[in-house]
């Protein structure tokens, strides 16, 4: 493994009595699209600001290309940053905004002009160079901010909820575009968002934050399919959380009882004594009801309690015999009306035992 471009070691930060970052460690590699995901107040923005040098960690170290950043002020870190509220300079034109970092570096005028034109083309603002930034739309201002940050060829581009202030439609378009720009320029992105879908569609890896703690850091598919804690499972929409009893265990496997059936599933690290109750996550699209349930290796008796039509999918909410509820998502309506009895099935490999 090559040396990571950015690494955090046990970074801790307090604001008064609240711990906003609690011994956070992770590493980001060159060219990666790395996302910090979490609800507001989870500490993700503060971590980004500590990487930028805008906040000072109480403890721990931030390393960029192996160099400790403790005594390096923001203006010597050579990073780019894009803010949620654009933060374009209102007293400058589009071109002056984009060329700001280059002018500060005292590059020759023709070099600056060429680079500014190149970046405006990259972000789709060619021909807007002479415009006043304040007359631009939110999406356009954010493109200016992005071009301005990329102009200095930053080692690392930090993005703090850059699409958070934009309309739904523009946000979707910009997601694709951002990913495309990241691929074209080969810049390493560290991206902060609270939008799980945004994180899943754009990222190479995602670190999920909860109350200042990095609870899981994995590729999107892994996070989505194999959450490790209740928080992560609950954060991605469409996970069922049910309780099971541990009947027996080996080093790698657990035998748990869910409802009236017992099944053998993978075992999480840590202590899982026999007879304890564990939380289990099953994604709704892996739960089958009606005739499809008969092909599953685990089947439980259930009663349909609600049917929610969502357009492309239909959620069937079923209640098991022990009173636990599960959602089953399918592409078409399986049961006509609530109140009907139905088998409810899933496969053990889709069942994830959570650590907490």
């Amino acid at each position, binding site marked *: 493994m090559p040396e990571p471009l950015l690494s955090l070691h046990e970074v801790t930060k307090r604001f008064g009595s609240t711990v906003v970052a609690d011994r956070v460690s992770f590493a980001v590699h060159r060219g990666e699209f790395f996302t910090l995901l979490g609800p507001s107040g989870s500490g993700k923005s503060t971590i980004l600001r500590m990487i*930028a*040098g*805008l906040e000072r960690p109480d403890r721990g170290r931030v390393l960029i290309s192996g160099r400790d950043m403790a005594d390096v*002020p*923001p*203006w*010597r*870190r*050579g*990073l*780019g*940053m894009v*803010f949620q*509220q654009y*933060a374009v*300079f*209102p*007293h400058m034109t589009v071109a002056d905004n984009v060329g*700001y*970092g280059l002018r*500060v*570096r005292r590059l020759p005028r023709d070099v600056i002009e060429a680079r500014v034109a190149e970046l405006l083309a990259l972000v789709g603002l060619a021909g807007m160079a002479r415009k006043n930034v304040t007359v631009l739309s939110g999406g356009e201002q954010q493109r200016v*901010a992005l071009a*301005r*940050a990329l102009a*200095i060829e930053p080692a690392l581009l930090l993005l703090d909820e850059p699409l958070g202030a934009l309309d739904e439609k523009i946000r979707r378009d910009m997601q694709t575009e951002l990913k495309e720009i990241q691929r074209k320029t080969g810049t390493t992105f560290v991206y902060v968002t609270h939008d799980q879908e945004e994180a899943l569609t754009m990222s190479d890896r995602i670190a999920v934050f909860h109350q200042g703690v990095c609870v899981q850091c994995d590729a999107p598919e892994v996070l989505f399919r194999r959450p490790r804690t209740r928080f992560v499972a609950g954060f991605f929409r469409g996970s069922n959380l049910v309780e099971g009893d541990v009947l027996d265990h080996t080093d790698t496997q657990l035998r748990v009882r869910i409802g009236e059936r017992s099944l053998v599933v993978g075992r999480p690290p840590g202590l899982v004594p026999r007879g304890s109750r564990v939380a289990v996550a099953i994604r709704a699209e892996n739960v089958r009801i009606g005739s499809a349930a008969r092909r599953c290796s685990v089947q439980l008796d259930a009663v349909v309690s609600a049917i929610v039509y969502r357009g492309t999918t239909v959620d069937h909410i079923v209640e098991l015999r022990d009173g636990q509820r599960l959602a089953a998502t399918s592409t078409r309506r399986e049961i006509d009306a609530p109140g009907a009895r139905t088998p409810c099935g899933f496969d053990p490999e889709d069942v994830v035992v959570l650590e907490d």
Partner: protein
Amino acid sequence: MGTVQGGAVQVGVRRADPSRVARYGILAIPMLFVALFFIVPLALMVVGSFWERAGFWVRPAFSVRAYAEFLTGVRLFVLRRSLAVAGVATLAGLVIAYPIAYFLARHVPERTSRSMLLLFTVPFVINYVIRNFAWTYLLGRTGPVNGMLMAAGLIHRPLDWLLFSDVAVLVGLITSYMPFMVYPLWLAVAAVDRRLVEASWLLGANPRVTFLKVTLPLSMPGIFAAVIFGFVGSFGESAVPIILGGVGYQMMGNTITSTLGVLNYPLAAAMSSVVLAAMLLFLAGWYLVFDVRSFLGKLVRW
């Protein structure tokens, strides 16, 4: 509202919208007040500047004698001195007030800065005549300033130029008008988005460059507002030159007062009109350079 449905004949009279009437009604009171007590007297003053002296009174005429008297006589020197003294006082006030405003806006928690700003109103609890007379004691030959300088061994004889001089007038003007300059500057600096400063840092600009390229240009409207507060006030001041300038120290304010004293009303009106015109030009320049509304808009949003 007020339209008849179904193709009936439209009544040709526009119905008065009651909320509109109320709005203009409320606006009319201050407008009338301003017109009656400010605009009309100022207009009368301008008209009067073209009249002629007639014994102890004036008579209607169209004469530019008063202007000629003003612009050719020794009073032109007074105008030049007023401009220079007010200019220096304003510049010095800016140099003192900007760092104070910057510090309060950027390095002090908002609650503290608000109460500290309130402290700048304390000098105005004391009557300005008393405030300025206090300086005559402080700066006098036997006053504490000379006393301390002598005790420290820096001087052997009391400094004469501390009082009844340009220095004393500047001290009086700066202490009178500098506190007023802090407020618009504080508002302007506080209105500069911190993220713009952070964005500038990350783009490689150190705090000094960031100040020159971001904070200073964006606080320009506040600087101009402060300059107007300081300059207009200092320029028209009449108590400070009388109390601290000493005998014969003339600025526009007290020259106009003394001209009224000798009953030369047209000349006093002409001088006042020139001062008024200068100030209006100044304001018009500000309005052209900065869109006042956008500045106010920023303050309101903030």
